[in-house]
């Protein structure tokens, strides 16, 4: 079915001089879509041409609309010779195909040339008229929304999670075609850019089709990757999670202001009686302000779940035991000799899985119960088992390759028809891997994998495929048709206490009963850490204790996950980035030998990385890792391993023991001395870290008899001291080489009754470990870092934010380095990079580097490339302390996680209470006091450049306000909030308009007024602090190649890459702005391949970036949006006051 694509070329500016004689340019534009091309007139002798063309109309299939980019070429007209190309713009039409995304692309876009970079800008207008196709057999999937964000997008509500979708397409790489020998580098680069654009489009369309088949309307956590396999081709693959999303209308939008969900109210306020009885809800101001956002009527005390809920999903014990043992068969199979066939064990996998399929769960029937999400609606995640990961080494086969010299064009479809078996090979590889992941998850007693991601590392013809995720138990409610509401009702439910049920239904170790009834919707904040597997038949050795929070369920001593910290999790202190780095040399080899040696090395690397992580975690006195990402990169003569994660202290898990150093043969005195000094250093570091990260685990002794038993049997011991073979220590990271559960079941827990993690120093590895432990430079004061979305323990972000990318390439000058030497170099390299970041961002202190994403590669022999992308977000220290203090005084248990939620809840209400009381009728309403007893402190209103003056001028006013607040017995005070309150109230005073009106007036005033260039914020996170995302405009997925033959003149490799990255940022920003957006969230730079040849003065670089274009509004403006809401609030608070 056709759609009509319309494009209009308005003008150009800053064009380069193409005619040396006149210092001017005679520019015209070619607009191409598919095989149709239009041209504008030549605009003579100008660097700022005004074409103002007619509307060029393309009538095309919607299938093409999805696949093809609109290609705009700017040329210089030459009467006598061929026209010179100035540059191109590729426009992805996809965002225009969904009715909920953008409607028009309009704005200045940089004209890009692969040799010269950005050369001026062009102003275009693009629209699409789409006639909806209801044909069942259609090949297009217009309207399916794509999100890179790995959580439920902010202004949507998830109705249903359908599950895993994946697709891959393969093509010949134009760079390796015969024609490349005769065409110019520019032509070759453009062919490649265009091809990848086409392939991405096709991939997205195909995934969309799968989603439609499943009945979904969106893909969340869409992850697209390129494998540049060289001569064997180019693979574009993508995975994602199919969902059915409902758009929240602005009026009912929950006040999910930032990263955490306001609707989860963890049971962390034991002193607050509000959660004890629903009837008190309406009276308790602390809790009453949130419901109006999500519930239209007065709070319903108790909303029951649909009674028709199918039988709860419950994996029975025998099942999980069985699964773990059968998994053993799989995982014991060593992966050697990875040809195209894959490992032997896997063949048995799917079969067995089929045999013992759990019929009771809809989820289990899925082929891959895998989710790319890392952040979940409250209640979704029931239990988390641990990290599951799989790696597989493959040889890129050339058999499928067409004979070189084939004159076939690289048009996508042609290729597919000829080498149709090619994608299947790749498909099969990934299928194997996913099966393995699934079986690992089963071994952990889990039915699903969340936080799932896939990656590859390619060197010559060897390819390592990796996948990792977190085994988890999910709430089946979200998988069923007709299950709803992550919003209001959940919130209501989660606040209902179930004293009876909790006690009665939860037998010790009886996991199966926990998903019944209301418990579905109200997982305790500690629920996700409870073990999903069978206590008596653990898949790996771990010390179990009773949960430190609920005292009812067993929890492991340490938890590793790939997901973000769940909003409901209680964390003590702050978190920090923990990295394990490893370098292993390997002999140069070819083909199978090479693959074998790599796959032999892999398990050892994983083990060592894991040990390092564990040691560093202990050193920081933490007990859980989130966002774990292990990357193993292969080079010709070495393997690099880099594991990054965010360590936290989960209050529900036992306190980690220290690290104890033990000499095996305590022979002489000096040796002992040495050990004791080492021990002292380690102990000191641990103490220091505890202070630094504010880890002071609360000693909560509830008078729960069961809890007491838990306490008595509490064992903080570590397994590692136990006489099980070394390799087993690493089993928490599930690999295919993990040990059998038979062995595990024999494990006697009493073996490990030591209170510390023991490092035996005789072991050279241990020495190395200790060295690396202690050489990690401390983070400078004022900085925090993490690789997750947000830092636990920090809530009051300001709007100050800075996204950055840093790339470094190191040359190893010494050819004969030992493993140890390499390790040292690699560690230093990462540490130096971090130090450098801290220094460069020092102006943002206090700040936190969030979503620190390291990518390592070995682009050439002796070269190590490290690329980092992250966002630095500053936060308000004073407010933070004030908030903490106030919370403590209020009698709340000072769990940062809970504190945050409290603050959020109070936010909007406070604003309105403050202003009304302090300005309109300062004395008339003494009864209003209780509502404003707490001043919201976090979520500073965003302040634009140069608003400081405003701030100063209102300072006196503030003091006055403050006095008011204090008089009324407020405990928490915050400069920023009052500011906000003031700015609202001041406008009220000037106008006698009702509150709602005056607010909307204010908002119109603060609308961005005709700035020359829209400021576009970019962040790898899924949110912007202090703002609310009101619209998702579509996915941005761009691929650029830049090449130079004058490397020195462009400032060397650094100059070249610096300007290229800056250009990529600029193009991304311009495209976001053209879609009407003002930010790109979930930004990631997935590929940054850099190649140089300094002797030839040449370099080439490929960059792939992606993210979600969005429109956000400042939280302060947001108040103005639903005037209805505010008035309702006022009335409700007023009513409260009188009661």
């Amino acid at each position, binding site marked *: 079915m056709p759609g009509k694509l319309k494009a209009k070329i308005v003008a150009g500016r800053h064009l380069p001089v193409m005619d040396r004689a006149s210092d001017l340019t005679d520019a015209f534009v070619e607009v191409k879509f598919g095989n149709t091309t239009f041209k504008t007139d030549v605009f003579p002798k100008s660097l700022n041409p005004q074409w103002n063309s007619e509307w060029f109309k393309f009538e095309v299939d919607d299938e093409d609309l999805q696949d093809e980019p609109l290609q705009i070429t700017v040329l210089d007209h030459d009467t006598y010779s061929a026209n010179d190309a100035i540059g191109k713009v590729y426009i992805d039409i996809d965002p225009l195909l969904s009715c909920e995304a953008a409607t028009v692309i309009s704005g200045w876009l940089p004209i890009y040339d692969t040799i010269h970079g*950005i050369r001026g800008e062009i102003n275009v207008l693009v629209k699409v008229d789409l006639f909806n196709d209801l044909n069942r057999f259609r090949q297009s999937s217009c309207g399916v929304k794509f999100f890179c964000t790995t959580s439920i997008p902010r202004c949507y509500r998830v109705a249903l999670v359908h599950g895993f979708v994946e697709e891959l397409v393969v093509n010949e790489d134009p760079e390796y075609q015969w024609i490349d020998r005769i065409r110019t580098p520019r032509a070759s680069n453009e062919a490649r850019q265009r091809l990848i654009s086409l392939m991405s489009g096709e991939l997205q369309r195909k995934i969309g089709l799968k989603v439609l088949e499943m009945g979904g309307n969106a893909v969340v956590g869409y992850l697209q990757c390129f494998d540049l396999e060289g001569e064997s081709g180019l693979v574009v693959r993508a995975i994602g999670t199919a969902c059915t999303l409902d758009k929240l209308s602005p009026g009912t939008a929950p006040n999910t202001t930032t990263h955490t969900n306001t609707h989860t109210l963890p049971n962390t306020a034991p002193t607050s009686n509000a959660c004890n009885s629903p009837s008190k809800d309406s009276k308790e101001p602390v809790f009453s302000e949130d419901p109006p956002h999500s519930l239209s009527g007065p709070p319903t005390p108790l909303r029951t779940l649909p009674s028709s809920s199918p039988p709860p999903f419950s994996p029975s014990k025998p099942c999980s035991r069985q699964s773990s043992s059968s998994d053993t068969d799989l995982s014991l199979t060593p992966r050697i000799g990875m040809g195209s066939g894959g490992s032997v064990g896997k063949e048995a996998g799917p079969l067995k899985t089929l045999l013992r399929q759990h019929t009771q769960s809809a989820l289990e029937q899925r082929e891959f119960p895998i989710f790319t999400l890392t952040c979940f609606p409250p209640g979704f995640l029931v239990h988390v088992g641990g990290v599951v990961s799989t790696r597989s080494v493959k040889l890129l086969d050339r058999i499928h390759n067409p004979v070189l010299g084939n004159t076939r064009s690289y048009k996508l479809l042609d290729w597919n028809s000829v080498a149709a078996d090619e994608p299947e090979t790749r498909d099969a590889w990934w299928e194997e891997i996913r099966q393995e992941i699934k079986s690992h998850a089963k071994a952990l007693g889990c039915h699903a994998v969340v936080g799932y991601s896939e990656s590859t590392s390619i060197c010559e013809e060897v390819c390592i495929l990796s996948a990792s995720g977190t085994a988890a138990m999910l709430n089946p409610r979200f998988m069923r048709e007709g299950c709803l509401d992550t919003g209001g009702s959940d919130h209501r439910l989660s606040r209902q206490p179930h004293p009876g049920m909790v006690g009665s239904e939860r037998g010790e170790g009886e996991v199966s009963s926990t998903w019944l009834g209301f418990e579905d919707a109200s997982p305790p904040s500690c629920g996700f850490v409870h073990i999903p597997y069978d206590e008596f038949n653990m898949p790996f050795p771990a010390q179990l204790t009773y949960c430190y929070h609920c005292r009812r369920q067993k929890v492991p001593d340490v938890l590793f996950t790939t997901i973000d910290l769940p909003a409901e999790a209680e964390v003590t202190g702050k978190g920090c980035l923990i990295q394990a780095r490893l370098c292993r040399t390997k002999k140069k080899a070819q083909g199978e030998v090479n693959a074998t040696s790599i796959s032999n090395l892999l398990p050892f690397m994983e083990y060592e990385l894991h040990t390092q992580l564990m040691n560093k975690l202990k050193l920081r006195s933490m007990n859980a890792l989130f966002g774990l990402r292990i990357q193993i990169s292969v080079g010709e003569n070495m393997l690099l391993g880099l594991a990054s994660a965010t360590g936290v202290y989960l209050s529900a898990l036992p306190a980690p023991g220290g690290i104890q150093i033990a000499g095996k043969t305590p022979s002489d005195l000096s040796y002992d001395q040495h050990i004791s000094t080492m021990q002292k250093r380690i102990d000191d570091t641990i103490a220091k870290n505890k202070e630094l990260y504010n880890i002071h685990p609360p000693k909560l002794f509830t008078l729960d008899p069961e809890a007491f038993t838990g306490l008595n049997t509490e064992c903080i011991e570590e397994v590692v001291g136990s006489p099980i073979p070394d390799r087993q220590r690493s089993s928490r990271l599930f690999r295919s080489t993990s040990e059998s559960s038979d062995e595990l079941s024999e494990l006697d827990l009493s073996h490990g009754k030591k209170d510390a993690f023991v490092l035996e120093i005789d072991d050279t590895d241990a020495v190395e470990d200790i060295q690396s432990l202690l050489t990690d430079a401390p983070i*400078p004061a004022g900085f925090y870092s993490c690789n997750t979305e947000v830092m636990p323990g920090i809530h009051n972000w300001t709007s100050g934010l800075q996204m950055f990318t840093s*790339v470094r390439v190191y040359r190893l*000058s010494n050819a004969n380095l030992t493993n140890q030497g390499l390790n040292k170099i690699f560690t230093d390299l990462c540490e130096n990079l971090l130090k450098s*970041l801290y220094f460069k961002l020092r102006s943002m202190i206090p700040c936190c580097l969030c979503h620190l994403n390291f990518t390592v590669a070995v682009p050439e022999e002796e070269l190590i490339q490290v690329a980092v992308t992250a966002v630095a977000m500053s936060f308000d220290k004073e407010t933070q302390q004030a908030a903490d203090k106030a919370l403590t005084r209020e009698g709340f248990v000072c769990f940062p996680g809970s504190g945050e939620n409290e603050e959020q809840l109070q936010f909007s209400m406070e604003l309105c209470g403050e202003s009304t009381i302090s300005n309109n009728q300062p004395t008339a309403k003494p009864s209003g006091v209780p509502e404003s007893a707490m001043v919201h402190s976090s979520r500073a209103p965003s302040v634009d450049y140069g608003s400081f003056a405003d701030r100063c001028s209102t300072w006196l006013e503030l003091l006055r306000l403050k006095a008011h607040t204090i008089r009324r017995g407020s405990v928490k005070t915050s400069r920023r909030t009052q500011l906000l309150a003031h700015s609202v109230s001041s406008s009220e005073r000037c106008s006698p308009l009702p509150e709602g009106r005056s607010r909307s007036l204010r908002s119109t005033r603060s609308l961005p007024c005709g*700035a020359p260039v829209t*400021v576009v914020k970019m962040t790898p996170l899924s949110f912007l602090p202090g703002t609310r995302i009101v619209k998702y405009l579509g996915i941005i997925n761009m691929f650029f190649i830049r090449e130079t033959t004058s490397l020195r003149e462009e400032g060397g490799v650094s100059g070249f890459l*610096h*300007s290229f990255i*800056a250009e990529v940022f600029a193009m991304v920003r311009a495209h976001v702005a053209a879609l009407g957006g003002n930010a790109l969230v979930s930004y990631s730079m997935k590929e940054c391949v850099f190649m140089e040849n300094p002797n030839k003065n040449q370099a080439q670089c490929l960059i792939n970036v992606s993210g979600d274009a969005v429109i956000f509004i400042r939280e302060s403006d947001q108040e103005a949006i639903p005037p209805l809401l505010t008035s309702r609030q006022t009335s409700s608070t007023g009513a409260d006051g009188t009661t």
Partner: protein
Amino acid sequence: MSVELDVFVVNTTIMDEEVYQLWLDGYTGLGHNINQLTHIDILDTVIHQSYESCYLSAPSSVNDAVKVRMEGGVLEGCEASAEVLHSDTMDQYRTFQMCERLLHSPVKLANQLLFQIPPHRQVMLIERYYAFDSVFVREVLGKKLSKGTKKDLDDVSAKTGVTLKSCRRQFDNFKRVFKVVEELKGPLVENIRQHFLLSDKLARDYAAIVFFANNRFETGKKKLHYLTFQDFAFCAGQLISNWTVGALDNMVEDMDVDLEKEFLQDLKELKILITDRDLLDQHKSLVCTALRGKTKAFNEMEANFKNLSRGLVNIAAKLTNTKEVRDFFIDLVEKFIEPCRSDKWTAGDMRLYLTHYTNSAHVLDTFKHQVVWDRYMGVIKSCILKMYHD
């Protein structure tokens, strides 16, 4: 192990003002491909030879900048090493180098897409880029902004202590502004402000520089050395707003850069004040009457009146000749300021004298050129008052 490549790119371009100043001051980035701290000295010379024309002026390069920053105590409080500082300096220098092209036409900076720079930072970047050293500008003020002058910049650099790189930047700025403004109609200061987005103060200074360069006023003579750039800038401002075509009518086709020909012709008529004996005596007695008893230097004033008056009127009469225009300031100093100074007039004396000297001419019956006289003396008075200091 060596760092082969090291870049740090941010979405919102942040620039350290201190490093920016170092860069502007000519602590030049080495042709940016050299990142190796250890080899920098050896490579310096090589690079210096091959890249001097493009990137370099001072061989000591970015290391200097790093050293200055270290001495400035940047590292205090940060656990960072010289290596980190070097990397940071290189990053910033690269950014500046990429920005430089845009700074050449500041209007572009506001609507370019390559760097996302907050507006107030843009203002800072432009303002600092176009700022100049008064010692340097004093050397080239009134000179032709030509290639020849540019070639002599190394002498200027040696003399003033401003790095050659910085000298070149400043010189190029002057030239760029001159070229753009030269052909434009309308008020000079306003044109500069609009095309280069400079602050009012800086735009006025540039207007002065352009004006001086255009009229080639001599400022380099030894006798003028005591005058600062600000003195000249003030005088230029006076001349621009009173003696140019645009001074009378902003809408006039012509521009602000040239003195009004007709006015200069009219000035010849003032000669009557000194050629006509009666008029000269009458003028003198009027002035003396007014001054008597009001100043200690009265006697010297009375004695020198004719000389001084001849000096000023002769300057006026000669201005039709472009060559003489160039000597305007030197003439003012030689013919008027120096005699007064040797008679130890105070600034107050000077003001008093000039006021009465100007006003008395109105009372003269036979003197018909009041308008021209006022237009001339108004400027002369304020210029002399500005220039009358040690």
